[in-house]
């Protein structure tokens, strides 16, 4: 894969930068070339990249390198900050405006994921905003599009207004009347996918806009879109000034450079991101996370920051001692697990490690198994946790019952624990001899 080379390429460039107190023009220029490649591989539009690099370069040249960072990390820090600020602010909330019912108009190319997004938004509106939405089916062109919205509506437990394949402007107007009559306070209008260069269809969108005066006009953009994202976003924004953008299919392994392109050409906030096939898979958009994802080299700084906050230093020292003296118990095991949880989900952590971001998709991190492990340990008495060796058959049976698992689960955990304890003993032995500390982190397989 082309992507995988990027972070190592960057690291190579940055290796040359070590040990300098201030970033020189030449250093920055070389680094920026690699950043430029990284952004292009992530599908950020070429013209947007050019503009961005110019700005980041100007800021980086002559910048003092912070004491705790290498020059390479400093460049990354600057680039990351610039990217994040270009991405916009975090809490882009939905605006419902003064009119009742408020209208949210969904627009976009074919296959961007508008219909599914309507269902996701409806659920979000119900849960987080306490609204009662009505869905309106205005895609009269694609076969069975109305049926699809009806199914989505029933899954989301939200009513759907449709009036066959009559003029969508009329259908939308009727839907607003219907909403008034049935005391719905938001109408989400699903429109047909349309090409931004199809003038007839873009006119139709404008007519719907004029008839409804929506509080929100959202452009639904596929996160996998390439260079063309700028043309699409520009055209839609010019036709019906958008109020925001929704990214879909962000659960894929795309780096999602389109997000940056769209943001740069429209200046409109990205409000939400679709992150899965289920109707509940909708998240607020996080500009900072997106920035590091586009950069595709993980955010080592954040990882270190998070690790420092979450990992209690004193406990860590204790743990180290226990590891050395072989008095590591199941209680410590549980502690360690909890601390890791504080750092975020396993998936998040893995994504932050450079070189891992592309691969996380293949590792199915089993957080459920972690939960089971926790339940099993919590079903033990303090004595059992401290001396796992006393766990006989009848104790194990009780623990299995108490934790809602099976004896096999308990046995598996105990075997794992024993194996880990042995491994840890060996590792700590080796670790201290070589003076390397890094490896000893989390020796357990959950």
């Amino acid at each position, binding site marked *: 894969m082309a992507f995988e080379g990027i972070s190592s390429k960057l690291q190579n460039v940055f290796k040359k930068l070590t040990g300098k107190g201030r970033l020189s023009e030449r250093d920055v220029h070389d680094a920026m070339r690699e950043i430029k490649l990284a952004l292009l591989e992530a*599908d950020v539009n070429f013209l947007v990249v050019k503009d961005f690099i110019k700005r980041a370069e100007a800021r980086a040249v002559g910048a003092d390198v912070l004491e705790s960072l290498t020059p390479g990390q400093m460049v990354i820090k600057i680039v990351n900050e610039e990217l994040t600020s270009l991405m916009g602010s975090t809490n882009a909330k939905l605006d419902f405006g003064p009119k009742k019912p408020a209208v949210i108009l969904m627009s976009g190319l074919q296959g961007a*994921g508008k219909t599914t997004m309507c269902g996701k938004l409806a659920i979000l509106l119900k849960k987080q905003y306490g609204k009662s939405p009505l869905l309106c089916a205005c895609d009269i062109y694609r076969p*069975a599009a109305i049926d*699809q919205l009806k*199914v989505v509506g029933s899954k989301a437990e939200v009513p759907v207004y449709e009036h066959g394949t009559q003029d969508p402007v009329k259908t939308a107007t009727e839907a607003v009347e219907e909403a008034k009559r049935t005391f719905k306070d938001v109408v989400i209008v699903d429109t047909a996918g349309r090409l931004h260069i199809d003038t007839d269809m873009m006119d139709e969108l404008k007519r719907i806009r004029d008839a409804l005066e929506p509080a929100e006009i959202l452009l639904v953009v596929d996160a*996998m879109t*390439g*260079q063309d994202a700028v043309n699409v976003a520009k055209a839609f924004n010019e036709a019906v000034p958008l109020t925001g953008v929704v990214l879909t*299919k962000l659960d894929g392994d795309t780096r999602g450079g389109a997000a940056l392109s769209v943001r740069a050409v429209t200046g409109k906030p990205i409000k939400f991101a679709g992150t899965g096939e289920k109707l509940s898979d909708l998240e607020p958009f996080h500009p900072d996370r997106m920035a590091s994802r586009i950069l595709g080299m993980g955010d080592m700084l954040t990882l270190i920051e998070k690790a420092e906050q979450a990992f209690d230093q004193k406990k860590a020292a204790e743990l180290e001692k226990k590891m050395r003296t072989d008095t590591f118990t199941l209680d410590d095991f549980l502690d360690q697990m909890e601390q890791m949880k504080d750092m975020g989900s396993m998936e998040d952590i893995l994504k932050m490690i450079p070189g891992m971001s592309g691969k996380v998709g293949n590792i*199915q991190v089993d957080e459920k198994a972690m939960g089971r492990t926790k339940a099993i340990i919590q079903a033990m008495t303090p004595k059992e946790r401290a001396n796992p060796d006393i766990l006989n058959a009848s104790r194990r049976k009780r623990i299995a019952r108490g934790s809602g698992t099976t004896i096999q689960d308990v046995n598996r955990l105990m075997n794992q624990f024993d194996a880990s304890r042995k491994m840890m003993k060996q590792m700590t032995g080796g670790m201290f001899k070589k003076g390397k500390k890094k490896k000893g982190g989390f020796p357990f397989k959950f």
Partner: protein
Amino acid sequence: MEKEKKSWFSRLKEGLGKTNNWFSNLFNKDGINDAFYEELEEAMILADMGMETSERLLDALRAQVKADKLTERADARNALAKLIADTVRVDTAFAADEGPAVILIVGVNGVGKTTTIGKIANEYASAGRKPMIAAADTFRAAAAEQLGEWAARANVPMVRHQEGADPAAVVFDAIASYRAKGCDLLLVDTAGRLHNKKNLMNELNKIRRMIARELPDTPCEVLLVLDATTGQNAVAQAEAFLEVCELTGVILTKLDGTAKGGVTVQISDTLHVPVRFIGVGEGIDDLRRFDADEFAAALLNLEA
């Protein structure tokens, strides 16, 4: 909604309009120099061709310009078009044209799989073949209804189950029906799936194996439907589907927009998976055979 009929070539060219402007601006200035190559590279990247492939093609162009002592930008443009065409050229026959075959349509969500199946069914039915459609997208709401509409338009029989049914079971039943009715082309629609979802990819692998088991002597074309607006992620998609279900080709859809689909050059170049069809609109006859020379020519704004 009836649109003016145009030749697909001019439509493709229109669709590729943005690239055209880029390239025509480039080629009208004089002299082949570094700036020329640099601008060419930018233009190729804007067409989603990707860094690696663009660089490889430009290196080849440089060598040729030197060897053939080219001095005119127009000549260089022709040479580049030829290089691109050679990269994407298909030199193997399409199994479905040779006799009875299975066409398994795969891809991520929203690329146009269902619409494409309708178009393929129509094309082969019009040519006197007997297609059968298996509606194995049992996941997306109303997917079977949508496909049923296309099947009716193309007048082709279709086998479907309830929403949420096992897609492999749908294919199994469709194969039985395909045999019973004496059909000679089985078109299998599948649910859109992101290529990094392991379980969904395993499901596809199961369907592929089932087809191989039930119809061992019938060749199976596994076609990845790619949205022309997709960027570099298309390469990752092709890689993943190649691994899981022995991809044999690509269908490039939505070429009637401004997106160029240049990423397929990269897929042909690195994975050697050829483009078989292109989609140029939402009508049932908006499907074309892929032609390497016309594609490259349209990309560079040359007359074919």
